[in-house]
């Protein structure tokens, strides 16, 4: 890898994960604080997807790693909603008592 490509690829990988974090945080925020925050979640996820594509097209990473990154971007999409729904379901029996 060229020196520039090292920093470029690492930067994109970091930003992708960071955007995934924003997505998760905004997603829960939209459920707990204000529905409007869902736009933030969508915005962040858009960045995740865009970065995954950018990594795929423009970095010298091996094809295996590129597929892994795109796949993990897809999985990231599911983590917050699935976790959320699961948590709600998990808490449901107790919530009825109080």
């Amino acid at each position, binding site marked *: 890898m060229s*020196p520039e490509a090292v920093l470029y690829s690492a930067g994109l990988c970091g930003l992708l994960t960071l955007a995934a974090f924003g997505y998760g945080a905004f997603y829960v925020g939209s459920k707990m604080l204000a529905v409007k925050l869902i736009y933030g979640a969508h915005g962040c996820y858009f960045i995740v997807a865009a970065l995954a594509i950018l990594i795929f097209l423009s970095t010298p990473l091996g094809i295996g790693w590129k597929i892994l990154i795109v796949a993990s971007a897809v999985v990231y999409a599911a983590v917050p909603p699935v976790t959320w729904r*699961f948590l709600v*379901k*998990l808490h*449901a*029996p107790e919530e009825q008592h109080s």
Partner: protein
Amino acid sequence: MDIQEPGFWRAGAISTTAVMIVVLIFLSINSSQAIAVGGSHVPDYSVINRQIGYRYDWTRREDVPVIGGPQPLFGKVYNEGQATALMNRAKLVIQSRNCINCHTFFGNGAYYGPDLTKSWLDPAWHQIFMPMTGAKTQEEAMVMFLMDPPKYPTWDRRMPNLHLSEQDAQAVVAYLKWMSAVDTNGFPANFGMQGEKP
């Protein structure tokens, strides 16, 4: 199966962990063979009697050590037993002097001093230290440096004198030579090539 039930996830946790541990144990058995002295990635200690290079390998697409013809160390040829004794001593020197809290070995340790993985192959010995010490051979220059590093500084961040005896220093030099022959999957890349890709 009810995903609200702890039992379901308990089973999941136990089985996942068990599978991972079993896989790790198998991989560790296999790796232990590869990293044992004389294994597929780590040479015999007597490799210190040979010439060692580091070159880009087009099939593996990374830098790999190249073991060449005879090249005695300190003008001597060591059998495997003598070489092992030397290495045992060197490792004790390295541990007792706490080198790893300034340097890295295979990139692990501290980052105050340079990485020592390929130090044996460092052009600095010929370009800087041999002229500075007046030593005739690289290994002599290394011993002189290790025995009194502050006397031969290359910049303001100096290495302190850790009171190595001559035997200690010679053992460490042998250790560094052996280490440079370990197959590290290409780390560090482009060593000594100043960025030109082969």
